[in-house]
């Protein structure tokens, strides 16, 4: 069980680096969606007794993270007629290096945390920390609104991955709350992106600089 789990999380960690190195928006969105699908499969691997609850959580995650959100983002990109190149604020090579360093640091940090024996041999905690860090790098290091949203979602993926530690012990409420709110967040962000586009004729957040002190 642990080997499959670690394989999947390892893949997700690789996708983090891919997202950091992508220079085109559609590929960042695709990377993020692939990561979402992998995360959606995790509950099936972690929970040995396959029940309808676990199945439902997995299905909902795959549909939301792998399908609905990427579709929304692609639509926002199309309607807003966005230039497909990603403009970096932190360059691709520096952000890749940061991401790689962050991944190593995440593995090291997870070693020093007190984990239950069942969790100590898995990559859940390092994977979560690495994704959160990657999300932050994208959030801070990219200029386009959509790539910032992708950064936010990769960070959310990391937090969701961390939640896997608790999936057997906490009620479904926490799980469904995460999905529901994620939809809400992206839905609203999507609308706003649309509005920014109409108001500024661009999705370049560097132009959002009237309000500063």
């Amino acid at each position, binding site marked *: 069980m642990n080997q499959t789990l670690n394989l999947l999380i390892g893949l997700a960690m690789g996708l983090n680096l891919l997202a950091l190195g992508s220079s085109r928006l559609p590929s960042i969105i695709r990377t993020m969606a692939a990561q979402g699908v992998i995360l959606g499969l995790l509950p099936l691997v972690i929970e040995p007794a396959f029940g309808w609850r676990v199945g439902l959580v997995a299905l909902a995650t795959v549909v939301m993270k792998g399908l609905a959100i990427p579709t929304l983002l692609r639509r926002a990109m199309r309607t807003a007629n966005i230039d497909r190149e990603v403009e970096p604020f932190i360059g691709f090579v520096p952000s890749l290096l940061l991401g790689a360093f962050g991944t190593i640091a995440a593995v090291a940090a997870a070693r020093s945390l007190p984990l239950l024996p069942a969790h100590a041999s898995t990559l859940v905690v390092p994977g979560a920390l690495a994704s959160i860090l990657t999300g932050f790098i994208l959030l801070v290091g990219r200029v386009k609104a959509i790539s910032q949203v992708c950064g936010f979602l990769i960070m959310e993926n990391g937090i969701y991955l961390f939640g896997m530690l608790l999936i057997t012990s906490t009620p479904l409420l926490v799980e469904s709350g995460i999905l529901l709110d994620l939809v809400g967040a992206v839905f609203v962000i999507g609308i*706003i992106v649309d509005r920014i586009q109409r*108001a500024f004729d661009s999705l370049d957040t560097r132009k959002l600089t009237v309000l500063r002190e």
Partner: protein
Amino acid sequence: MKELLLVFAPLAGALLAVIWPSERTRPWLLPVFAAGHTFLVFWMLVDPPAVSPTAWLAFDPLARSVLPAVSLLFLACSVYGVSYLRIRTERPNRVFVAALLAILGLLSAGHQARHLGLLWITTEAVTLAAVPLLHFNGTPRAFEATWKYLLIGGTGIGLSLLGSFCLGYASLRGGGSGDLTFAALAAQGVALSRPWVLIAWVLLLVGYGTKMGLAPMHTWKPDAYGEAPGIVGAILAGGVTTVAFTAILRVRAVVDAAGAGAMAGRTLLAIGLFSMIVAALLLLATRDFKRMLAYSSVEHMGILVIGAGFGPAGTWAALFHVWSNSLTKGSLFLSAGNIRRAAGARTVDEVSGMTAVTPRSATIFVAGMFAVTACPPFGPFFSELRILRAAIGTGHGVAATLLLGGLLLVFFGLTRLVFAIVDGRPRPGAARLEGKRVRETAGVILPPLILLGFSLWLGLATPPVLRDAWTAAVRQLFPAS
């Protein structure tokens, strides 16, 4: 039963607002539902219901000590809202009214949430519900402010979720059964895994601190308060930030039970003093009187967490300050909204002489300014005095000095701006000089005036029932003392 009604009645009102056909009569839903809410909440304040220790949502002593203030503020804002939306008929108000009512319901849920997950879900939902309110004005600047609010607020919410998970894991690692109610977590006490508790505390403080607008996570605040209508600013500054503060208090009680209370107190003190100093310096620099209110809010959030850092006595004073800050800030935001509409501008370079244009609003604004800078005999003076006494009582002389210094700087910053706006000659841009009549109707004058009256009343004669409520809340948060 009543505690659920507090949540679901306003949510039903929000649904009703969505399907209500008439633009003209829809705003009246606000005061109707708000009045019902206030009535119910004050009934529960006087006659508190029994709380089952395992309940996920209950009107417990902590909810009882702050939710009535939020309800009262919302009622005043909703009355103001009817007149405000009548002035702003050019904007459709369906989403605005629905979002306001939804916020009332979600705030009631957030204040009463006794479960880590439920608390997080309600705070996130409040954040999302506030989005349509922020860009009600529809200007590019309003969208920019909303974008920043979403990005910073979203990240803050993500971190508080991560913090909640860490606290959950602390319980699991300590042999917990997966019951994430605050009562169950606190009952585990020192069995909670300490490193995870510390990580959770940092993440939750940063996450909910972002929602509160503590420096250095305050950057969304001046933009959002500056661009949103005054009524929205009042509800955000007096209601939404309060729910984040009670969240921090609830988590703090768990950290306390886990034996890390001294560390939690120190971090609260540090972040509070930092917020206060940052806000004071920004107040000395800004030239915009709506952004000024935002910095003043950052300052008062700082004072709240400073108070919470001084143990039981300080927390009692902080709960008092929640009341005096919510009511006073509401009065300031609403009167500032009136002034801004009449002046057509927001910076001291463009606005002056408002006593001649809007005499009543300007008077309330000046009185509110004195109240919020803690001049006697208004509420904030007495609550801040209590915080200072708690500081000296717990031997935090340096912190008390810094607090006083910060208050003094804030006083300079606020008086400088407020008098520049109300004194002097009206500028050519002001409405009256362009031939338009500025009507200060009862609907836009009475709500801020009444809020100011409550602030005065709190200072002169704090009702015993409130003192009891705060004492009960402190007993809930510090069961050992």
